[in-house]
């Protein structure tokens, strides 16, 4: 008897994931190429940067905040990285004076610059008490304007081969194992450790669960929030750096709408909109659900417009199902 109920609960709790798996099986049955090395490698390359962004946003969401500037920050980071990784003989270099630098140096610089934006977000939210939705909405527009000025509204191309290879290469030449797998894996492990095994993680969940109670328990709420928004920006910087490499170019349009995808993926993965709840494994599943859905519909030759409709439905249904779990307990 008890076991039967569990199966039912398992199905209803994971309805979206099961649907997506079903969809993937149907697609595979229709098209042998679906499980090909190219396609799976491609899927991993698509998931990797989005997962990194979603990890960044997750901290904001768990503390009952949000980060609407995520996508634009990714774009700005991609543009920064792109400017520093153009070949010296490229005719349309953004900055002629930019010296030739190793990609690691470019990455570190990008991360450092973006961390400042995260710190500003965090301070505005923690000290000026501006609601995160508004604070990051303002930052979104602000970053976009900055990006337009710096790039002169021109797309940036002509990357060095060493930079391009970061996202296009594969380990052991095996297309199942794109290089992008590694940073996503490292970020995942790091974030899991941070959320589950450190004070920062515990404080984050406590603030999301009940900010006043966390303060009474001695948690430095402001400092925690600032750390969370800085870390978010650092992850956007990393993702932007990788996306620039993967796309082979960057422009002000890079990263548009990524914040919404990331927030949606987190929510599908069980990060509660009411705060205090969310796991890294769930976020990974959330991102996977989205990307698998996209690829499946592509393989089944649906018009891309239908993909958007499907994504929208998934977001609403997933959150409705998630909330139902809490409602049932009342």
């Amino acid at each position, binding site marked *: 008897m008890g076991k039967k109920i569990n199966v039912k609960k398992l199905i209803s709790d994971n309805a979206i994931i099961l649907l997506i798996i079903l969809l993937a099986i149907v697609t595979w049955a229709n098209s042998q190429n679906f499980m090909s090395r190219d396609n799976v490698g491609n899927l991993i390359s698509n998931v990797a940067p989005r997962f990194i962004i979603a990890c960044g946003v997750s901290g904001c969401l768990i503390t009952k905040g949000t980060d609407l500037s995520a996508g634009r920050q990714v774009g700005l980071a991609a543009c920064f990285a792109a400017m520093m990784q153009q070949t010296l003989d490229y005719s349309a270099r953004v900055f002629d004076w930019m010296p030739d630098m190793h990609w690691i140096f470019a990455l570190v610089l990008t991360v450092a610059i973006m961390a400042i934006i995260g710190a500003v977000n965090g301070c505005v939210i923690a000290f000026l008490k501006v609601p995160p939705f508004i604070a990051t909405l303002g930052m979104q527009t602000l970053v976009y304007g900055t990006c337009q000025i710096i790039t002169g509204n021109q797309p940036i191309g002509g990357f060095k081969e060493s930079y391009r290879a970061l996202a296009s290469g594969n380990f052991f030449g095996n297309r199942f194992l794109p290089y992008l797998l590694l940073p996503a894996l490292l970020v995942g492990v790091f974030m899991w450790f941070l959320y589950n095994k450190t*004070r920062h993680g515990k404080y984050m969940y406590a603030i999301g*669960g*009940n900010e006043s*109670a*966390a303060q009474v*328990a001695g948690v430095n709420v402001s400092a925690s929030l600032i750390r969370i928004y800085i870390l978010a920006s650092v992850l956007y910087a990393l993702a932007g750096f990788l996306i620039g490499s993967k796309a082979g170019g960057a422009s002000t349009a890079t990263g548009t709408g990524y914040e919404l995808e990331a927030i949606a993926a987190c929510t599908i993965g069980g990060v509660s909109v*009411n705060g205090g709840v969310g796991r890294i494994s769930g976020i990974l599943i959330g991102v996977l659900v989205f990307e698998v859905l996209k690829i499946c519909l592509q393989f089944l030759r649906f018009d891309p417009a239908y993909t958007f409709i499907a994504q929208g439905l998934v977001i609403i249904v997933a959150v409705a199902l998630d909330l139902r779990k809490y409602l049932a307990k009342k």
Partner: protein
Amino acid sequence: MSEYRLEMRDVVKTFPGVKALNHAQLKLRPGTVHALMGENGAGKSTLMKCMFGIYHMDEGEVLYEGQKVQIKGPLDALNRGIAMVHQELQPIPERSIGENIYVGRYPTKKYGPVTVIDHAKMYEDAEAVLKEVHLNFNPRAKLGSLSVSQMQLVEIAKAVSADCKVLILDEPTSSLTAAEVEALFTIINELREKGVSIVYISHKMDEILRISDEVTIMRDGQYIGTWDAKGLTTDFIITKMVGRELSNLFPKRENVPGEVVFRVENFTSINPKSFRHASFEVRKGEILGVAGLVGAQRTELMEGLFGLRSHTEGKITYQGRELKINQPKDAINSGIAMLTEDRRATGILGVLSIADNVSIASLNQYLIGGVMLDDRKIEQLVQDNVAKLSIKTPSSKTLIQSLSGGNQQKVLISRWLANDPDVFILDEPTRGIDVGAKYEIYCIIAALAKQGKSVIMISSEMSELIGMSDRIMVMCDGRVTGFIDGAEANQENIMALATQFE
């Protein structure tokens, strides 16, 4: 016409995993006040929510004026003349008092095909209703401009305005001052004379014995019995509620107050209407009770000491060492712990586990290599406390919000014990906790004092203050008005100091 206005028979209501009501019953006569009593979790509120149509019962029936009825929802209940004042208020503070009274059933008028809200009539009616319950508020004022207790009275006015035949009051006096309680009782008496049946849920024995005609007692979702209120004693009621004899309400205290260790001098709030020039001291191993009416600023003073509120002047010392406290973190590092008044709002981290709730204030102690938390040490801490304070929980991973009030309070006490503080500030430590668990909390407090901790305990229950304190500090309107030795304290001398207005 039936003898009863309303009867609930054999009501069964099951929630996932819990049988909240197990053949409960209630019989209301017209024109009486019927007290419904039981420990927390006995099913009182659940039964009332079934009557009011918020919950649908699995089994059982409701007879209203002799007719079998099915109450479909709150609106249906209101239309039939059943009104309810909830334990937790649901105010809309940004709207006017009048709108709050008539929300959902606004008076309307028609301009041809367009129906609009008749504001003039609404405010006129609201004023009349407020007058009826002796409230002198402007119905156009924002609800948010009132104090919590005034809002509660407005809520009662709202129920009265529905012209009800059955009125359910779920812990109506929990935030009222003594004078407001008197006003409420006057209203209740008037309603009773008009023939209204009133269900009165409260934990306060003296109120029950004073106001009610009949008493129904529930335990574990079951009906225990109904008695005429005349001739009932507190002991009898408690025995029936708990299901066993309680020989003593308070444990024997074996603490011996030592030298003065914690000293507060001239502590003054940044808010001129709040606490000012407060000076007091607490001895090692002493329980200092803090008495006062609602609005005496006791909570504010204690939250000020703990760094939750700002102060302009004042000095706090522990064993002669001055403590600089600007935020709770400073207080915690100085060896002070505080159980706040509102457990749900500022105490528990509801969606987190018991382990997280216990360890959150002392995480620095369980680090490996300065970074990683040692889950085994945390589990050990939780298990130690679960055993020591007999916390009833399935596991350390259980969410704290699924525990009863008493067990939540024990978890919060363990949180502070982990820090081994010297001074415990307890703000209403037994509020909303049932009789059995109360006794256990008293034992914990007595044990703390015996270990040499200095305990400051705010309470609004006179018997608790008198029964537990070595000394009682009384406050009135932001000032400390005097101290009374615990052995000499009684209701009269405490009230005399508590009403010493300037």
